[in-house]
């Protein structure tokens, strides 16, 4: 009897040692490998320095992640914090009860620590909904054996590329997935193009977009420096075989480069014909969001603030190989010395956040049609864009009509 009582007392004491009001924060993410362990390391560090909160992370397979958030979070079955890119943000906000606005928590110092455009990606109709964690965008990747100094502007680019192009031998000076609208957006933004104007009004057939497409046709036909039908697999093969000197691609591509290829990174060139404006790629920004039905919003915000702070940013950069959105992380000696992180940090200066409007999902399919028909000369840029504009306007109106 006595031993039983003793055990009970011990058990009680053990229970009491955990603070009764410990807030439990569940974080959902879709990271794997290095990114996952870096995030877990940050969470562990937070747990040891904040005994009143217990953060646990859960990796969800990427394919199912967005749907899982849409289904679980509004019904109060989801996490307290989730990490996702900004492209679904608008949809979740419009659907309601998914993402908590954090504008109110956000003090000017916290806001100032991020690269301004990444903060913009987290903002929907004037309200901030999340803290930017990292960003991804495309940049110029070149083969050091073939190109000694990366081109600064379009004239240099075309000159170098023309010299290295030999269609008969299957060699191309430049290769990138130009018929993919995401990649083409860099050129489009250089000409001052856009998809939506005045909020969420589709305007894909604006004159700047037409000019950007016409300029792409110049590279394709007059300069003839690009391969036909540039699939991602083709670009990988060309670059690894040393058959193309320069590509435009993002951090996800670096893992596919063969070990014998000496590569360098540089910002995308300026375009002379666009008034010497730089190519401005679209960037996706992964943010940490507080779930609207969370019971511990204060603690959840505190954690995402920690997660996007400098020490966490350095861990995520060096171990997770991410480009942190926190500017001060780049002042760290090790991060600054990393050529890849530095190059993407240089590129992000001019990058444009991809629209986070829910209407954007209706753009992709018509825009793909535009890119395919224009690059195969099945339609003129203006006609193709007009058709896309009509299709997008119809879809958007169908969604909004009462």
């Amino acid at each position: 009897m006595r031993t039983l009582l003793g055990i009970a007392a011990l058990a009680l004491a053990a229970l009491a040692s955990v603070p009764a009001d410990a807030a439990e924060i569940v974080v959902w993410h879709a990271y794997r490998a290095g990114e996952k362990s870096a995030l877990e390391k940050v969470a562990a560090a937070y747990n040891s320095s904040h005994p009143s909160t217990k953060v646990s992370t859960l990796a969800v397979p990427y394919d199912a992640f967005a749907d899982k958030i849409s289904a679980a979070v509004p019904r109060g079955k989801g996490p307290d914090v989730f990490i996702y890119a900004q492209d679904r943000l608008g949809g979740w906000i419009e659907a309601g009860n998914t993402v908590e606005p954090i504008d109110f928590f956000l003090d000017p110092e916290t806001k100032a620590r991020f690269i301004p455009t990444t903060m913009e990606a987290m903002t929907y109709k004037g309200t901030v909904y999340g803290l930017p964690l990292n960003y991804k965008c495309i940049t110029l990747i070149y083969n050091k054996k073939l190109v000694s100094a990366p081109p600064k502007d379009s004239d240099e680019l075309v000159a170098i590329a023309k010299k290295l192009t030999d269609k008969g031998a299957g060699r191309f000076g430049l290769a990138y997935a130009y018929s993919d609208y995401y990649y083409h957006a860099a050129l489009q933004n250089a000409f001052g193009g856009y998809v939506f104007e005045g909020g969420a009004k589709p305007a894909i057939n604006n004159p700047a977009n037409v000019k950007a497409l016409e300029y792409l046709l110049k590279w394709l036909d007059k300069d003839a420096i690009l391969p036909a039908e540039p699939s991602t697999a083709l670009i990988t093969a060309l670059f690894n075989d040393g058959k193309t000197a320069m590509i435009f691609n993002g951090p996800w591509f670096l893992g596919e480069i063969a070990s014998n290829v000496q590569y360098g990174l540089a910002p995308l060139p300026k375009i002379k014909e666009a008034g010497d404006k730089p190519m401005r790629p679209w960037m996706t920004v992964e943010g940490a969001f507080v779930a609207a039905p969370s019971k511990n919003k204060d603690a959840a915000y505190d954690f995402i603030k920690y997660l996007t702070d400098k020490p966490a940013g350095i861990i995520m950069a060096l171990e997770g190989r991410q480009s942190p959105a926190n500017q001060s992380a780049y002042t760290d000696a090790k991060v600054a010395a990393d050529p890849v992180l530095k190059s993407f940090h240089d590129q992000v200066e001019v990058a444009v956040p991809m629209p986070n409007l829910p209407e954007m999902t209706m753009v992709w399919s018509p825009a793909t049609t535009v890119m395919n028909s224009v690059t195969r000369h099945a339609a003129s840029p203006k006609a193709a864009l007009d058709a896309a504009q009509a299709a997008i306007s119809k879809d958007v109106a169908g969604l909004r009509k009462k």
Partner: protein
Amino acid sequence: MPAPPAHRLRFLIAVALGAVLGAVLLRGFVSDASRQVADEAQERQAVVTLQALTSLVRRAGGEGDAVRSAVAAWQSRTPSAPQARVFRADGIRLEASTAPDDAGDRAAPRRLRREEKPLYDRSQRIAAAVQTNREEQQARKPEIEVAPAGARLSLAGPLEKNGAVVGIVEIETAPLPLPKPAGWSGFLLALIAPIAVFGGLAFLLGEKRLPLLAAAVVCVAASLSWMGRAAVSELAAQQQRAAEQVAERVRDQATVTQAVATAQVLPGAAAAPGSWDVDDFRQPLGLLTPDGSVNPQRLAQAVDTAARELRRTLLGAGALALALLLLVGLGAFNLIGRSLRRHRQAYLYIAPAILGMVVLVFFPFTYGVTLSFTDSNLYNTGKAISDVWIGLRNYADILGDFAFIKRGDGGSFVNYLNFYWTLLFTIIWTVCNVTIGVVSGLILALVLNTRALALRPIYRVVLILPWAMPNYITALIWKGMFHQQFGVINQVIQLFGFPAVSWFDRPASSFLTALATNGWLSFPFMMVVSLGALQSIPADLYEAARVDGASRLQQFKAITLPSLRPALVPAVIISVVWTFNMFNIIYLVTGGEPGSSTEILVTQAYKFAFERYRYGYAAAYSTVIFGILLVYGSIQNRVSRATEA
């Protein structure tokens, strides 16, 4: 010996049940409508108060001491709204407040505290709503938020300066008076009168079925229509009273704001008080004249509309009650009850299955069909179904659009999103696939059926393999094989010196890829079915035919095909349905490329739901698909029954 007829008793029960159902439903609907009128009147009065205060705050410059003293002066004259707060988004500042909590060190002006986040979020939400409505030039998001707070209402509307939203004005009303419940006397009368009258009539009429039926219907219908008529006129009177209450509030607030403005020497002219009576989108309701008295014409119109709506609902309820009466009176329930009792065990056995079907099949199905009558989409998933009800418009949009060839400046082109194009494509897809499946399956079965064939079991296993693999894996493998550069098919083509084909760039070649994949997947099934049927054909039939001198072809036509028919027809019916809805292959292999030209109906419905976020439209699309397959199934059923005979 047959039991003596008990029509009188049965009809009496039927009348009682019908009267109870009718009276309960009517009372429910009427008190709903009356509560709605009462709620709406309270809400309108509160909105008028909020708008009056907002106009005052705006005239006081929107910030500073002028606003605080104006709000305080207004509060002392407005007991109907015991607290008001003015919030400025710039600086997250509580500009003015008359809430009892905001006194002492919490008095305005001050920065919001951390626990006051909801007020801030509300302001952001309203600012975004105003901006959205302005950009889209329509009223989609409520600009005045009305939320219940216990027995009170909490309202917030935008505070604007030079056309931009700079904050919100928030008020809380006094506890609302509880709605007066409707009287019971009418209800009881509508309940008892028909039973009593019918009792008397039944006594007079005797055991005659038809006269009893007529008497029962007349009794219940008369009492319900009397009850409904009374309710409709009561509702009109209530609406009249509500309008007067709102008008009174408008006049009251006009004097209050006038007095405050004069006392505080506020600049600017007073707005027309009648314009304070607005809906959630700040659009004038128009039920009041500019000076704030009731506009009798508009009110009469509104009363008319409401009466018509209520009458329609009540007619529905009455019809339901009469239907119950007929069912009970004519003995349908009696019959069902007897059958349930007699086959107790059978019903018990199928109960679990029925339960499962209800949860897994009937409920989702009904929900889907219901959704198809709404405009449910990404923007309104939170709303009740009745709020987004649009009737048959989705069906009209889908089925009424015949323009599948469009004329543009570059010649005419096919509109691939058109329903009829997709239907045509789906039918071509189904016919081609089933033909390929049956022909190749049958040929292989005939080959395998050769008696002297060596290693027959091994061939059979190998040929069934495509069927044994999960079809999405097969689909992905085939997609890879059709890859423009690395696909094995293009490699082979290039081996013979032809240029590589980019398969997914043209509708026809894209269609071919899906067709090849599905052909590969569908022949084993047809082969197994035909093989089974072939082996059951008695060999002596062929022997006899040979003795009679029939050729191989004649044997095939006269013996093999007819014997295969009973097995093949059901297999074809099933495979038509499978292929018609073969989501995986289209979605994974062609993905609808190029430009949605190779979409079949189900993948199109999927894209409407999950790429264009139009859930109601997609549900209507699916219901149409269901309708097509239902028609097909019933025709097939009849045809195959004919073949069995």
